[in-house]
């Protein structure tokens, strides 16, 4: 039985304190402020104190403005970023579809990239080989499959990436918003394939700005604001809460700040 639980999870990033603009100081002082004796000079808490529990059948929508921490949350769930405090509990095979367009090996052919990406996502060589034909057929890029990926148009690269990523059958599927390139015909086929994939997984986590997609695939939603969960409820409520939040920000005339909270403990010392 698949499951995913975040128990008071925070994620923070080190900020490499580049010497402040216009700041005078000797080389040693600049080095000290840059490396702080091997430690970062500050940290940005991008996710703070998240509590979340997903069981089979749950499909979670993540809402939030740019920089609220959506992608970081997905990467944390995928096991890329370790929680800096708190604990994460998982069961089942987790497959992230985060940013498929990046991470191709540009001078390897489409075929070779299918193998590389498949293995990177955790498939064995044999599994990849068994799926290669099906991936090639869905990507539908003809003889270009034998050419280096560097020569592909962005649409072709996207189709190949989508075909590879959606060929997995995980228990927990994490999708970051990225669909949108590609022509209308491909988008229709992609939509069908995505529906089929989503139907086969036990837990889905989807970050998107498009309400229609969220309503279609998700049955609950959270709203992130500067790294904290400020709302957790049904997907319809989450969407209206998020709309309200955006309106409030617009009225107050303040932009949503790009990152959660920044502490510069040692910059003030310098």
């Amino acid at each position: 039985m698949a499951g995913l639980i975040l128990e008071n999870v925070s994620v923070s990033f080190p900020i490499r304190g580049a010497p402040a603009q216009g700041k005078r100081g000797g080389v040693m002082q600049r080095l000290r402020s840059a490396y702080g004796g091997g430690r970062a000079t500050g940290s940005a808490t991008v996710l703070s104190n998240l509590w979340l529990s997903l069981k089979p059948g749950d499909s979670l929508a993540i809402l939030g403005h740019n920089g609220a921490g959506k992608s970081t949350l997905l990467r944390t769930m995928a096991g890329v970023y370790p929680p800096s405090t708190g604990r994460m509990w998982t069961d089942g095979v987790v497959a992230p579809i985060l940013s498929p367009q990046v991470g191709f090996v540009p001078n390897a052919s489409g075929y070779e990239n299918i193998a590389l990406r498949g293995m990177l996502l955790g498939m064995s060589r044999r599994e990849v080989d068994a799926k290669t034909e099906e991936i090639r057929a869905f990507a539908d890029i003809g003889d270009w499959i034998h050419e280096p990926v560097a020569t592909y148009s962005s649409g072709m690269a996207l189709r190949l990436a989508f075909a590879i990523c959606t060929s997995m059958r995980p228990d927990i599927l994490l999708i970051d918003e990225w669909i949108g390139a590609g022509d209308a015909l491909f988008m229709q086929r992609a939509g069908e394939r995505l529906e089929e994939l989503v139907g086969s997984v036990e837990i889905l986590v989807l970050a998107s700005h498009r309400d229609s997609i969220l309503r279609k695939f998700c049955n609950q939603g959270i709203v992130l604001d500067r790294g904290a969960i400020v709302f957790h409820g049904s997907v319809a409520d989450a969407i209206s809460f998020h709309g309200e939040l955006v309106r409030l920000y617009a009225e107050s005339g303040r932009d949503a700040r790009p990152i959660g909270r920044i502490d510069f403990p040692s910059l003030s010392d310098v």
Partner: protein
Amino acid sequence: MVAVGDTAGRTLGRGTGDMTAGIWTTRLRVAALRFGLWMGSPLRPAKGANTNFVRDAARAWRMSAFARSLAYHRAIARNRQAYLGALWMPLGFVLFAGGISLLWAQIFDRPLNTYLPYVTFGLFVWNLILGSLVDGARAMQESRNLILQSNTPILIYPLTAMLKQSIMAAYNIPFVILVAIAFSPAFDPAMLLALPGLLLVWVLGLAVCITLSILCTYVPDLSELIASGLRFVFFFTPILWLPNTREGLHHIWMWNPFYYVIEVVRAPLSGNHEIAPLAFAVTGALTLIAWLVAVFVYRRFAGAVPTRLGG
């Protein structure tokens, strides 16, 4: 005006009441889990990636097919567009080793039949050392996109760097063998000691790659320092000159670890049996130390590498 931006979430949350309800339900569910009431679920804490060397090394080893494939593509990447393709790797080596031997043999009045093999064997190992250090230093930065895509153990990337260097060295091996056959008086079984020597250099290189790749995400200047420092070290290591040239200068090579690492391959091949045992002993000790350092650095610093790359 109040700082709405700072409190917007909380104010709204309190207003609807939903937010608190949602979070408390979750906390209760988590509490239930902690006390084992979660319907016997096999949920377990997701172990922090990249902190346990043995576990992650085993995972990386299972993914070695991926590392091999990636290493191959990176090795031939540079020459993909050239007409001669991958042939440029051995060609560059042959031209440099051959050309410099001919020139320096003339300048310093050395017999070519001993000087050419000496330079060829030395350069062969030096290329491997140089490549591993430079590639190791940027292994993580180079693979940033891949690291941020999946929870693949990051040990894969120093391994890839070393495999790439092995592929590049493999292209040079035919010329090395050719020189060894052409210039040695007779075949000596002791020449085969160069093979374990090469393996030892590889194992040492892997440990150094792991250490450097991790440290370079903390101190990015390190990769620049290595690239420029090694250019300098090249001239202080007996590759183009012989270690017994001048009595007064023996400190330069006697205390130079690169000398012994090169000798574990060069000494058996050129039949220099006096230095070979010492070279093996020193390189073996270096390898042991390098692995201890690598495991320490890995356990202490590897966990934060993804956040360092992503932040």
